[in-house]
């Protein structure tokens, strides 16, 4: 039993809201056709009129109304830009249909307490719309890359065949290129040799430094911390140039070890920060209790302290790994052509030859990242369940 009174709203109200959405989408269509302002006006007028008509004539037959929206948008999409236009048009029509009847029926009030003012209701939905728009803004560039990586041509272009969903417009040849081209395979192999080593060094040194720096009796703690964190704050190009001249003098420039050390230096700040954060919640009396029972400091560290700060160590290690795996500036300076990593290969590929192989690699990397993060999250939930805590 709900206390909220759901009242049907006048058609003009629904039309106004839908017109606002229409103007928003019209901006994109208008810009792509040459005039943003014209797009806004046309979008607002067309969508507003459609919503008004739908609410006036089909208020009671919501399902029919929604299908009509989908149909109208899909057909106009089909007419203007073929099969892919129909799919996008259908999706837009579905969205507009839902919004129109959601607003017109007054159901949008159910999520709110009955006493909320119109301003509060407006903000409630505006906030969600803005959050959704930001999500779309962040994710679209990544999503656009994925279909392009199946391009049958050697350019970053949606060909007419692709837009018609013609199988001839798609191909796996860029993936084949990645897996068979020795340059790319060498780069992948180099990245896989460098990143884990750099991560192990960062985690080892970073954890030790964080534990040491969390002891209250260490002198100049803040100054030391600031120095250790500096690779994160100093512009990368400056660290890179400094490392280049320093490593050249001591013979590390252009060697595997040099790149690993440089990447470890970049990864250490991440480990220090995350481990320091978990150490704040660490109760030092536990180590004293362990010592009291006869454990030496090393046993204490591995049996008592380490398990408790492990989440911080792992997420720091993950950051260190990604830093090394994504890094291009420092490796360009410190590495030589023999240590060409994946980002380096992508960088030169993008500059010298715009080949969709880069997009294929990007898609693979995105999938690996998602798998990695999902595994980590699942492991976290599992360990929390085992410890009897509910996942938050």
């Amino acid at each position: 039993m709900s206390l909220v009174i759901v009242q049907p709203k006048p058609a003009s109200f629904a039309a106004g809201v839908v017109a606002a959405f229409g103007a928003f989408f019209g901006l994109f269509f208008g810009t792509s056709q040459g005039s943003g302002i014209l797009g806004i006006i046309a979008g607002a007028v067309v969508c507003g009129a459609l919503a008004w008509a739908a609410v006036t004539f089909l208020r009671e037959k919501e399902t029919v109304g929604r299908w009509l929206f989908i149909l109208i948008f899909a057909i106009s999409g089909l007419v203007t830009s073929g099969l892919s236009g129909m799919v996008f048009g259908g999706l837009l029509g579905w969205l507009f249909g839902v919004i129109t009847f959601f607003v017109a029926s007054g159901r949008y009030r159910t999520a709110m307490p009955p006493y909320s003012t119109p301003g509060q209701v407006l903000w409630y939905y505006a906030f969600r719309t803005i959050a959704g728009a930001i999500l779309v803004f962040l994710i679209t560039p990544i999503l656009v890359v994925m279909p392009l990586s199946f391009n049958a041509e050697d350019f970053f272009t949606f060909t007419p065949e692709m837009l018609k969903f013609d199988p001839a417009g798609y191909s796996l040849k860029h993936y084949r290129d990645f897996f068979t081209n020795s340059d790319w395979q060498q780069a992948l192999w180099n990245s896989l040799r460098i990143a884990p080593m750099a991560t192990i060094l960062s985690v080892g040194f970073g954890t030790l430094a964080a534990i040491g720096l969390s002891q209250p009796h260490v002198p100049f703690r803040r100054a030391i911390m600031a120095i250790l964190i500096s690779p994160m704050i100093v512009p990368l190009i400056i660290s890179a140039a400094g490392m280049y001249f320093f490593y050249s003098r001591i013979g590390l420039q252009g060697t595997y070890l040099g790149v690993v050390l440089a990447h470890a230096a970049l990864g250490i700040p991440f480990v220090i920060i995350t481990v320091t954060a978990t150490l704040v919640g660490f109760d030092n009396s536990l180590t004293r209790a362990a010592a009291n029972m006869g454990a030496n400091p090393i046993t204490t560290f591995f049996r008592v302290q380490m398990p408790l700060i492990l989440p911080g160590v792992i997420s720091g290690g993950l950051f260190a790994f990604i830093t090394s795996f994504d890094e291009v500036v420092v490796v360009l300076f410190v590495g030589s052509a023999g240590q060409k990593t994946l980002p380096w290969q992508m960088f030169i590929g993008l500059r010298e030859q715009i080949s969709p192989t880069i997009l294929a690699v990007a898609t693979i990397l995105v999938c690996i990242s998602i798998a990695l993060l999902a595994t980590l999250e699942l492991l976290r939930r599992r360990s929390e369940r085992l410890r009897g805590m509910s996942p938050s």
Partner: protein
Amino acid sequence: MKLTKTLLAGTALALVAGGASAQEMADEMTIVSWGGAYQNSQLKAYVEPYMEMHPEVSVTWDESSAEAVAKLRAMNEAGNITWDLVDVVAADSIRLCDEGLAMEYDPEDLLAEGDDGTSAEDDFGDLLVDDCFIPQIVYSTTFGYRTDLVPEGADAPSEICDIFDLETYPGKRALEKRPINNMEWALLCDGVDKEEVYDVLATPEGQEQALAKLGTIKDDVIWWSAGADTPQLLADGEVFMGSTYNGRLYSVIEEQDQPVGMMWDAQVFDLDGWIIPEGLDEAHLARVKHFVKFATDTQRLADQAQYISYGPARVSSAPLVPEEMKQHMPTDPANSGNTFLYNYEFWADYRDDIDAKFQAWLAQ
């Protein structure tokens, strides 16, 4: 007497030892080039054949030619030369040679004779622009246009001044984001005689005139900086016409089957070749010299033309270029009716000044 003998013997021994160590060649080489189709042509035409003959040699490629000057300066400063052979354009070679970063060499000693017996010096001729440059190819910067976007009723663009003709050929143009070539084309289309272009461009009024002419199409220009940009823009249909290297256009038209046409009018020739960095150790230098002698001989340079439409730098290679490739060469008589040669002396003297003006004009 005895002392002299010992000394002589010692010197002889040292000479023999020196000679012997010069014969010992390093087994790895780091070659710096441009990546893409061009590097591939080098790989196919001379690096792979060389490695077949000398299986002990391994080659590492570094696609850093675009920043070769800056990197060689840094390497020199750090005292750590990690490159063995660097592919650069002639203008960069002149700078590197002036700064002492590239090794001076004697063409008769380092390079092979032509297969018809011409001396290396005569075979390369004027293309030996300084004491360090080992020429490989002649390429040109020219225009490509979308054949399907040519307005109805108009002929396909065929003259350089069609670039500035927005009425007949509306649409975006891609031009390189630097004054070189653009200024010459602008003056040529503003009524300046071809012979007088550089005299006019040397004066502040002439520079103003060129920028004013470029200003008439500025709103319709997309500026590019990497060789891959214009092919992508043309394939996209984002621009109607654009300048780029003729080998890139060849690949777009012949290999990628895009609806793009070639416009050879007022193409600007430029040279690309090797330099050997100064300061290599004996073993690496010996290997590089051995490789360069092979890689720049008549047959190898002609072979390269099979893989990319750039003209070989040796006169003696020209007859060996495959027949079907000749028509795509910038040096083919049908294509080279009206050409420029990159003016190294002029741009060495005026580049900084005109660059500054050009950048300021771009930002307006």
